[in-house]
């Protein structure tokens, strides 16, 4: 017994000595390597302390109160054009908040860790926000961010690491949304976010740094405070389903204000007796210099900020180039057996299965061999069908080469080929020799008129509003859009996979290429975008569900189509208002009617410029289309 007591005593002394030794070492100082050991435990229930921006975060901010936000001209004009009634449109009703706003929203948060079952390594940190059922996942396992052509979500894609006493989070791939509640201050889909989470006792601080080349002239920094709750506050659901708010409203009506016509713009400055310009000057409003800056401000300056600055050339897009431009073709899985191929100009979609590949659009054709190789990596079966959404060369450039790749000697041949051999009538092809190419008949007509090689021209055409085909276990529908960007456009819907291929009716990279000479029109374009919105079903809070493959740009869902539709409608309305007031095309161009969208979609050179788009809208409206 005595021996045991001695042993216990010695053991205690030894461990105490060891502990003292280690605890006595100097604290680790900056410069030490970053570890993944959690430096801060965020787990638990958190309630926002609404001691800052209570009005903004609750009822909403006031119109024209954009002070403290480094909005550039495009951002300011976007906000001033915004009409809060826009949320009465059914597709806008259930939109979630983008992450920078979500972190400042009302409602509680729950945070928990996800650990690997076997190693107990930290895989992810999850945040659930009460409002909008906002579920964020911050990946802690070192995985890379998705490619530029991957879909965007309201939360974005987040990765984290511990640096010092902070969790540092990097977020990309967010949708566009609101930086501020209710008054239109925008955040674009090009925004990236850096966050710092620190915890001091039961006080959690979240610092957000938003960089947005489209709408901000410099990063936007805000910090939010949260108090730890010892018990589950409950009420974590935030059900939303959309419905009609205003009956009989035309589906091409989007609430907005024309530049300079926002009727409530003076309310904020009048109520608080501050200059109108104070809330509109962008980055300077964040700094101590504001007071001096306003000393030289006049009412005229404030009024001038309500419209685009005159005499400037249109801004150009500040968006990330979504094309890989690395000479390679990249495969991106969409859903089930449907894939998007990126790299050869316009996006290509491939459906695979036992019946052979079904391909929608074939790119520019410059990388046709790599496109064929990519398809063969997905399925050993030959290409059976090629469908074209348009006759435009970046969608049909690879037709001939991919068609040849559809050769299937194992097939016994078609009865029809003997009755009407390909090359004689152009109506049918031998499926054993060539993939069958499908499109609206106007694609065939336009390509033949342009003297395209016969092997590149779709032979299997349709004339009516809808073409259907069942292939690889999925119902595939073609919906003809008679006068969108051209007079031969098709929307192609894989019903089971729920993927819509939009062609150039919808892109995320540029203004729509409304080709008046080949039958396009602005009204037809708006109609076609609305047709997409009639087919889509979101999965949750206005995102996910039906995927939409744009002609160019990243894989989207209805939210991106919706914003694009809104943009075309708003620009149309501005041009129409000027036409109605007797404006010439030159006057419309000088008015910079696209100023709030140019940093997203604009171009001053290349095949489709902002000026060409405005001209197309003007000419289309003047000709009653």
């Amino acid at each position: 017994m005595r021996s045991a007591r001695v042993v216990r005593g010695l053991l205690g002394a030894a461990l105490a000595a060891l502990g003292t030794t280690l605890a006595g070492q100097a604290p680790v100082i900056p410069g030490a390597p970053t570890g993944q050991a959690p430096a801060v435990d965020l787990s638990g229930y958190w309630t926002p302390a609404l001691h800052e921006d209570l009005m903004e975060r609750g009822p909403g901010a006031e119109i024209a109160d954009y002070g403290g936000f480094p909005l550039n001209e495009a951002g300011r004009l976007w906000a001033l054009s915004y009409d809060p009634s826009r949320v009465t449109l059914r597709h806008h009703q259930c939109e979630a908040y983008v992450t920078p706003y979500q972190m400042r929203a009302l409602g509680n948060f729950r945070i928990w860790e996800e650990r690997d079952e076997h190693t107990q390594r930290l895989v992810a940190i999850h945040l659930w926000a009460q409002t909008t059922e906002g579920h964020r996942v911050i990946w802690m396992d070192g995985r890379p961010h998705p490619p530029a052509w991957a879909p965007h979500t309201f939360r974005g894609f987040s990765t984290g690491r511990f640096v010092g006493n902070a969790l540092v989070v990097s977020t990309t791939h967010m949708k566009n949304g609101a930086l501020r509640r209710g008054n239109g201050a925008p955040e674009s889909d090009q925004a990236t976010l850096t966050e710092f989470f620190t915890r001091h006792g039961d006080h959690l601080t979240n610092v957000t740094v938003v960089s947005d080349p489209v709408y901000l002239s410099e990063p936007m920094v805000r910090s939010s405070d949260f108090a730890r709750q010892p018990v589950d506050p409950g009420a974590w659901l935030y059900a939303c389903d959309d419905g009609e708010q205003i009956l009989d409203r035309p589906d091409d009506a989007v609430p907005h204000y024309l530049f300079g016509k926002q009727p409530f713009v003076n309310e904020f400055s009048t109520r608080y007796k501050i200059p109108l310009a104070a809330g509109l000057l962008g980055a300077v409003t964040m700094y101590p210099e504001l007071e001096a800056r306003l000393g030289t401000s006049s009412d005229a300056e404030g009024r001038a900020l309500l419209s685009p600055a005159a005499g400037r050339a249109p801004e150009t897009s500040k968006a990330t180039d979504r094309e890989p431009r690395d000479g390679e073709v990249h495969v991106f899985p969409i859903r089930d057996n449907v894939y998007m191929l990126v790299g050869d100009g316009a996006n290509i979609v491939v459906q695979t299965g036992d019946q052979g590949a079904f391909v929608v659009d074939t790119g520019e054709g410059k990388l046709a061999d790599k496109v064929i190789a990519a398809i063969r990596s997905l399925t050993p079966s030959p290409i059976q069908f090629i469908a074209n959404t348009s006759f435009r060369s970046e969608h049909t450039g690879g037709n001939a080469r991919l068609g040849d790749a559809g050769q299937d000697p194992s097939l016994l041949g078609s009865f029809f080929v003997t009755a009407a051999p390909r090359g004689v009538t152009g109506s049918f092809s031998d499926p054993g020799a060539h993939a069958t190419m499908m499109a609206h008949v106007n694609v065939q007509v336009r390509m033949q008129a342009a003297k395209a090689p016969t092997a590149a021209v779709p032979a299997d055409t349709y004339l009516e509003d809808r073409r259907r085909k069942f292939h690889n276990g999925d119902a595939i529908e073609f919906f003809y859009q008679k006068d969108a960007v051209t007079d031969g456009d098709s929307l192609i819907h894989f019903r089971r996979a729920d993927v819509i291929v939009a062609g150039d009716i919808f892109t995320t990279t540029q203004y729509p290429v409304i080709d008046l000479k080949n039958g396009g029109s602005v009204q037809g374009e708006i109609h076609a975008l609305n047709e997409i919105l009639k087919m889509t079903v979101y999965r949750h809070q206005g995102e996910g569900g039906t995927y939409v493959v744009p002609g160019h740009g990243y894989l989207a869902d209805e939210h991106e189509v919706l914003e694009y539709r809104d943009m075309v409608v708003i620009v149309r309305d501005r041009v129409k208002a000027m036409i109605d007031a007797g404006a010439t095309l030159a006057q419309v161009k000088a008015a910079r009617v696209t100023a709030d969208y140019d940093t997203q979609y604009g171009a001053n050179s290349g095949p489709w410029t902002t000026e060409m788009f405005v001209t197309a809208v003007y000419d289309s409206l003047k000709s009653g289309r």
Partner: protein
Amino acid sequence: MRRTSFANRGAWVVCVSALMTALAVPTDAQRGRGGPPAPPSPRAAAPVDLTGQWVSLITEEWRQRQFTGAKGDFGSLNVVLLPPARKVAASWDPARDAAAGEQCKAYGAAGVMRLPTRVRVSWQDDTSLKLETDAGTQTRLFKFGPPQGDGGDWQGLSTASWDYPQAALAGRGFGAAPGGSLKVVTTKMKPGYLSRNGVPYSGNAVMTEFFDRFDVPGGDSLLVVTSEIVDPEYLATPYWTSQQFKRETDAARWRPTPCGAR
């Protein structure tokens, strides 16, 4: 008996190993001769470099902070004010403050960090960090160690300490969890204003602040000051805010100005 003996032998091995390890690992305190040297000064032990010039980024509660609100316009402070605070604020008279030589009431420790200002942080000595503001030309002194002085002026008495990451044993030799915050507790402030339009804090207010520095990809550095003000006389709950500042290299932007009552 044999098993007990074996167990004891195992325990001895543990004891001896631990003792040897303890003796073999030299601590800073054990290095050198002539007894334990003094622990590193707060300056030498700083887990984070907060020195330099920083400019406030007024991106929250913007109108109330960039402009002097009307009497009774409390902004988000509405949610924490007790009736006595509203009564005092209702009698706010900037001309009276100026006449009484109290035009710095909004520039006290509990108010000045939320004003549009630049701050300069420097070491006054090895145990004192100095924070100067160009708005109101104020100086706050953060003293490490026991409180010294009587306070009673606008900036009160600030006691500083380094606050290390929470994770168990982090920063104590058991893993890579560097970094930390400056913790400052300020008491004995002369009664002043939380906002320029006369929302008061009392002489009994206690303000606890954490100063964190974050380096943003792209080169910017941020100083974020998270603060809690407890004032049973005027505030119904602790008042929590966080203020952010961006590091500046252009010293020419430093423009000291006197306090203004408005």
